Structures are given as structure tokens and as C-alpha cells.
């Protein structure tokens, strides 16, 4: 042990390479151990599936990088070779928007596969400079960065092919512009983490994002509703108008730095403005990160451990009082006490979950938009389309019914209740949401259809929806028991999929989409045989079979939960 008469401040520093290599090695081991854990736990099939999926995934991801790179390269080449340098600024602006859009939305495969939080390194003796570098390096392989760098590389190549004399300037300027975008995305991330620290703020942001997507969809429908040339004209006008604005923004500075070669001083000034913007954005990023480095606490309220316990006795008394009332045969609910208590708890959870309400409203808004389009003239297609689309977004609620309970799931295992009743209550709660959603979508479709929806179409849609719901309810309940995944309500932004959900996730998606998309071939068959009743004859037995399967599963639920209780406890009760 060190002696106390040593100076408190170390005379030498830990080499940066030691710490950076240690972190790189640790990340590698975590990655490798992820495979090893599956192999050790006997999930060889899962391991093989994971490797195969990743092998298949990489070419798709590569296309996401290569596609924009080629597109940007071609546009840059066209702009320079056809003497339209003013088109470079909108191109660079578009790349920046795309970069930030992908980054903000977190469409990041790397992030979803990672369980590593860089803030966990703060307790080690790191200097701020190293932490800053680490935060920049750790996200370099995210799709947003790769797509952005790829597109700017393509732009540089396109400019160089069109005019070789611009190549040196293009490389330097676009490298700085890439750094600016990298810093900007990181700055947005750390500031958003600050602003969205409270759940309410996150929910409001989610709502705004949903409205943005709806707006985008409306815009998309409006532009597609016109002739193609109208759309092109609009885009050209928009690009020209945006040029005036972009002149005073980094895309304009970067573009002019490259193309205004006739006036070196002007070009240098533009480049200086670009550097200044980069420095300001970097400073804003570093400032916020420094706050985090010093130990800023972001979440709402005080940490759990610091909130003093309130006087417990009267609360217990009141709680027991209510529980006794719930068991009373004269209580308002006619349901068995366990089911009634579970339903009440699910309702309390739902009431406080604005995200869930947004998830319900958003598809309905889309249904409203779709119903006013060409589908309104074909009510036999509009109805299944609207209802199927509306319930699709909520299907996930069937697949992880214990997730939000976390460690509280132990209560179900400890309490003298029938686990079948608990499952049934949770299923009733989830199904109620889906049925409400389906009914609302049905109403919207019925109101906005230009003609009454034929009875046969309504019967077909009803049996189809029953089939979808009970198929997914059965599979979802089975999966909820066999592969639960903890859902952090307080920190949904850091929610990670459970290890088990990665390998079998595609199978679940296949069931969800497969059951919904079954409508397509059945519709085709109806048209082919010119018999709309065929859909009813197909879906009604399927629905009956799905309901029967669910009933069988429900009977087995008790035994299933007891069989999988170790896994349930391991996944939901851990940190």
C-alpha cells in the first residue's frame, strides 16, 4: 500500500495510450464474450443465427453508406462540371440534415448492440481531455457518422473528378465540414441528454417527433398528389430559396471555400467562418461534457437512495384497507380480486405513460390521412388497411407483458395468487388497448369512406383482426414468459434489448408482419375467384384456431411461469 507521506498529487501521469488501449481491449472482450455467453448457455442455434444475421446485415448497412456516397458524389460532380457551383451548398446542407437526422433518431445498430455507457468510465482517473477524445472515438462506427463521412467523401471525389484543381481545397474543407457535423451530432446528443433528463420532457419530445413525422407524411402525400414536374419545380425553387439562407451557414461557407477560387481572400474568409463555426460547436459540446465529467446529475428529482422514507404506518393501513375492500364481494368489480387488482395496476401504469398514449394516437392520425386519399374510394381495402395498420404499432405490448414490472414480478411468484390470473389480467389490459385502437381506426375508416363498407368486408376484417390479435397474443404471452426483457420506465432513452431478444427478434417480427400481411394473398384470392366471402371462410377458422390456441396456453401459463421463473427473475430482477 502507498504510504501517507507521499505527495497527494502524483508526480507522473498515466500514459494516455495505456488507458485508451485498456478501454479498447475491454470493449473487444465485451463484444467477444457476447458470443461466448450464448455458446456457453447452450444457445448454439441462437449464436449461429446471430452470426448469420450479422453477416447478412453488413451488406445492407454498407449500402446505406455506399448509396449516399455515390449519390452525393454524382450531384457534386454534376454541380461543378455543369458550372452550377451554387448547388453545392444545398447538397452539403442536405448531407448535414441527413447526418443529424439519423444521429438524433438513434437509428444506430451499434448503439442497440452495445450495453456500454461511456459515463461509467468517469470513476477512473481519466483527465477531461482523454474523456473528450473517448466520447468522440466511441461513436465513430455509428451509422450516422459512417453515412455522413461516406457522403462527404463521395462529394470530395465528385468535385475532384469534375475539376481536379479544386481537389486539395475540397479535401481540406470537407474534412473540416465533416468534423463540424461530427461535433454537432455529439453536441446535440449531450445537450438533448440534458434537456430530456426528465421523463415528461422526453414524452413531450416524443410527441413533437410524432407530429413531425405526421407532417412529413402529409407533405409527402401532397407532393405525390401533384404531377411529377410540379414536385421537381417545387424542389428546384426550394433549393434556390435555401441558397440565400445557406450562404450564412456552414454549408454555404464550405461550398464557397471550395468554389470561389477566383477570389482567394473571399475563399479564405469563408473557410475561416467555417473553422469558427466548428470551434463554437466543439466548445458547446466540450462545455456540456465537462459538466458531466464533473459529476452533473441529470435525472429528475433526487436519486432514489436520497429520498427520505415517509412515515409508513398510515400508508400501510390505508393500503390494507383498500385491499380488504377489493376482496369484498360488494366491491365495484365483478372480476376475481387478483385480476381486478392487476388490471387496476396496469391502468395506473398506462395513465402515467404518455409515450403509450402517443403510440396510440400517432397511427390513428396516419389512418386519418390515408383514409382521405385514394383508399377512401375502395372501402373494402380501406377498412382492413386502416385497422391492420393501427394495431400493428401496438403489437409490441403483447410480447413483453412482465417487462415494465421489473423486480416487482417477484410479487406474483410470492403471492398466493394463480399465475394464470395474472397473465390473463395483463392480456386483458393489452388486448383492451388494441381493441380500442382497432375500434377507433374502424370508425375513422367508416366515416371517411366515400361509400358504405359492405357487410362481407366488415365480417372479413373482424375475423382477420381476431386472428391477428389472438395469434400475436398467444405467441406474445409465450415469449413474455420465456424471454422477458426489463423495461426501464424512468430511463427509456437508455433502454436496451435483452440478449435473448436479439436472436429471436426476427422470428417475432416475422410472426407479427406475417399475420398482418396474410391479408394480401387472401385479398388476391378473393379477387381471383371473384368471391369476397372467401376471406371470411379463411379468416374465421383461423381466428377460432388462434383463440383455441390461446385458451390452451392460458391453461398452461401457471406451469410455464414456474418452469421459467429462474429466467424471469434473472432478466427482470437484475441491475
Amino acid at each position, binding site marked *: 500500500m502507498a504510504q501517507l507521506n507521499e505527495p497527494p498529487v502524483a508526480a507522473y501521469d498515466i500514459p494516455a495510450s495505456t488507458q485508451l488501449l485498456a478501454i479498447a481491449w475491454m470493449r473487444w472482450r465485451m463484444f467477444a464474450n457476447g458470443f461466448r455467453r450464448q455458446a456457453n448457455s447452450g444457445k448454439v442455434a441462437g449464436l449461429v443465427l446471430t452470426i448469420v444475421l450479422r453477416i447478412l446485415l453488413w451488406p445492407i448497412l454498407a449500402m446505406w453508406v455506399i448509396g449516399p456516397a455515390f449519390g452525393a458524389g454524382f450531384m457534386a460532380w454534376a454541380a461543378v462540371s455543369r458550372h452550377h457551383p451554387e448547388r453545392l451548398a444545398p447538397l452539403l446542407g442536405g448531407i448535414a440534415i441527413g447526418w443529424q437526422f439519423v444521429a438524433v433518431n438513434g437509428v444506430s445498430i451499434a448503439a442497440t448492440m452495445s450495453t456500454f455507457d461511456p459515463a461509467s468510465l468517469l470513476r477512473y482517473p*481519466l483527465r477531461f481531455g482523454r474523456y473528450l477524445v473517448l466520447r468522440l472515438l466511441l461513436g465513430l462506427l455509428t451509422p450516422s457518422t459512417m453515412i455522413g463521412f461516406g457522403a462527404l467523401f463521395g462529394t470530395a471525389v465528385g468535385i475532384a473528378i469534375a475539376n481536379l484543381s479544386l481537389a486539395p481545397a475540397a479535401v481540406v474543407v470537407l474534412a473540416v465540414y465533416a468534423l463540424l457535423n461530427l461535433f454537432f451530432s455529439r453536441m446535440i446528443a449531450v445537450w438533448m441528454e440534458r434537456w430530456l433528463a426528465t421523463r415528461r420532457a422526453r414524452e413531450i419530445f416524443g410527441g413533437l417527433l410524432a407530429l413531425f413525422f405526421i407532417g412529413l407524411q402529409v407533405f409527402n402525400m401532397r407532393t405525390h398528389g401533384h404531377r411529377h414536374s410540379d414536385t421537381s419545380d417545387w424542389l428546384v425553387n426550394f433549393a434556390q430559396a435555401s441558397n440565400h439562407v445557406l450562404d450564412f451557414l456552414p454549408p454555404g461557407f464550405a461550398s464557397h471555400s471550395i468554389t470561389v477560387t477566383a477570389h482567394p481572400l473571399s475563399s479564405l474568409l469563408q473557410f475561416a467562418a467555417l473553422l469558427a463555426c466548428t470551434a463554437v460547436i466543439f466548445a458547446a459540446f466540450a462545455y456540456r461534457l465537462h459538466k458531466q465529467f464533473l459529476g452533473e446529475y441529470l435525472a429528475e428529482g433526487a436519486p432514489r437512495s436520497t429520498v427520505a422514507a415517509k412515515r409508513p404506518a398510515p400508508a400501510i393501513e390505508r393500503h390494507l384497507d383498500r385491499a380488504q375492500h377489493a376482496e369484498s364481494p360488494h366491491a365495484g368489480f365483478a372480476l376475481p380480486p387478483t385480476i381486478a387488482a392487476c388490471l387496476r395496476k396496469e391502468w395506473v401504469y398506462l395513465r402515467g405513460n404518455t409515450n403509450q398514449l402517443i403510440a396510440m394516437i400517432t397511427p390513428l392520425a396516419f389512418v386519418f390521412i390515408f383514409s382521405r386519399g385514394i383508399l377512401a374510394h375502395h372501402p373494402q381495402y380501406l377498412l382492413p388497411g386502416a385497422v391492420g395498420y393501427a394495431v400493428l404499432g401496438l403489437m409490441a405490448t403483447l410480447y413483453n407483458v412482465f417487462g415494465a414490472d421489473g423486480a416487482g414480478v417477484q410479487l406474483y411468484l410470492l403471492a398466493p395468487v394463480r399465475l394464470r390470473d395474472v397473465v390473463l389480467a395483463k392480456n386483458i389490459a393489452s388486448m383492451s388497448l388494441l381493441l380500442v385502437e382497432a375500434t377507433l381506426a374502424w370508425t375513422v375508416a367508416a366515416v371517411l369512406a366515400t361509400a358504405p363498407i359492405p357487410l362481407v368486408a366488415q365480417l372479413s376484417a373482424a375475423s382477420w383482426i381476431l386472428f391477428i390479435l389472438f395469434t400475436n397474443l398467444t405467441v406474445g404471452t409465450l415469449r413474455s414468459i420465456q424471454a422477458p426483457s426489463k423495461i426501464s420506465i424512468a430511463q427509456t432513452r437508455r433502454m436496451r434489448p435483452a440478449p435473448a431478444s436479439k436472436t429471436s427478434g426476427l422470428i417475432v417480427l416475422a410472426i407479427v408482419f406475417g399475420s398482418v400481411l396474410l391479408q394480401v394473398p387472401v385479398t388476391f384470392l378473393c379477387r381471383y375467384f371473384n368471391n369476397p366471402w372467401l376471406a371470411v371462410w379463411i379468416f374465421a377458422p383461423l381466428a377460432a384456431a388462434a383463440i383455441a390456441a390461446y385458451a390452451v396456453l392460458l391453461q398452461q401459463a401457471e406451469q410455464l411461469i414456474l418452469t421459467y421463473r429462474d429466467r424471469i427473475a434473472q432478466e427482470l430482477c437484475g441491475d
Partner: protein
Amino acid sequence: MPAAIETTSLTRRFGDFTAVDQVNLTVEAGQFFGFLGPNGAGKSTTIKMLTGLLAPTSGTIRVLGADLTQNSAELKRQIGVVPEGMALFGRLTASEYLRFVGRMYGLDKATTEQRTAELLDFMNLAGEDKKLVTDFSHGMQKKLALAAAVIHGPRVLFLDEPFEGVDAIAAGTLKSMLQRMIARGVTIFLTSHVLEIVERLCTHIGIIHRGQLVAQGSIDQLRAGVARHGDGTAPLTLEQIFLEIVGGGDQALTPPEQELSWLS
């Protein structure tokens, strides 16, 4: 010799809630210091601030005579921490984790390897090399967190509930390890709800209640302070001292028994 830990008017607020309020704490070098308080009193928040994981709203922290905010990286090399929740990397094995921690604290490879092997052996974790940390039991994780906290030979050790979930045999081993560290001049700052352990191990005690430091000193000093109010017939245990200081007249800590009369 400077105090190992010294805070001046240390305060931390979360919105309207003051978790730690104007705490002036002094822990001399080489002390085994027990930091006590009821649930939610501000113990973990204080430890987080003392280890640089949480910024104080106001006040200063000096560790080994140096300001923590100004010398964060240097002082983190001198301290070891078992934080609340342990904060382990679950997808590493125990030896991988200790190697990583050793390198992060600047130990060379040979020393890291040697200490990793010794610590795993000492903590009875040597046979678990193929198991990932996430698959460890709570007690095993606690032992690993302790091993990681001492691998670099810290001069000040912060332990937040170190014996929680650890079996009696391991707890005995850990206690003797901590006492040997004290004998070598290390300062240990410990929180625990098990007052018997604190009474047996610690020489000095600080008691925090509703964010305020309500008592500080050696156990004898605290006993003497409380005995004035007692009958003085027998030496008070730490539990009696604690309840006298914190629990006296506090309804939150002494719920009226008659309200739960249905229990019997």
C-alpha cells in the same frame, strides 16, 4: 499531516430537495470511519461527491490535502471505491475486469497480472474464470467490486455497504483485509446499516440525518455525549447511540406500534 477527507459546507440539492446540507466532515488519515444514517439520509450522495461522481451544489472537498475538483484525476488514482450498485462491467469475466481496472489506474501489465491473480485467489473467485460477471451471485459481485477497489493500492477507500449480501466467511476475510489496510496507514470511509460491524471495525463515526451531519467523533466521544441523557448504568451500544441521536422523538423512525396491532 493533512486530513484524509475534509469537507466544508458541503451541500447538494436536487431541485427543491436538499440531500446533503452544509456538511463539515473531517476524517483524519489512517482512520476507519463509519458513516451512518437512516435510509435516505444522504450517505450515498455524500460518498458520490467525495469520490468525484457527483458535483456538489456548493462547498468544498479536500482529499489528502488537495482540492478534489481541481485535482480530480490525480486524486482518483489515490482512492478506491465500491460504489452503490457496484457498477461492474457485466460482460467481462472477473479476471478481465480486474485487468482492465488495473490498467486504467496505470499499473503495468506484470503488476496487474500478479495482483489480479492474488485478488481472485484471496476472494475465492479464482475458479470462476469462465463465468461472466453478470452471471455472478450478488455476494461474488460484491467481492469482485472490493477487489477492483483495492487493486491499485489506494490511500483512501470508500465502501458503500460493502458487506451487504456477502456470506459470513467472506465477510470475515474482508474485515481482516480492511484491518490490515488500516494498519498500513490507509483511510477507510465506510457506510453500513449493520451497526454491529461498524462498532467492531470503525474507530470514528459520523452520523448524517436528513442531509445534516448531526454527530461526529470517536465512539467513546459519541457515547459520552449521549450518556448525559441516559441513566449511565451501562455503556451504550452503537445502536443505542444511533437511535438516541437520530431516532429520538422522530416519528418517521418509530412508527406507533398500535397501528399494526392486527399483525399478532
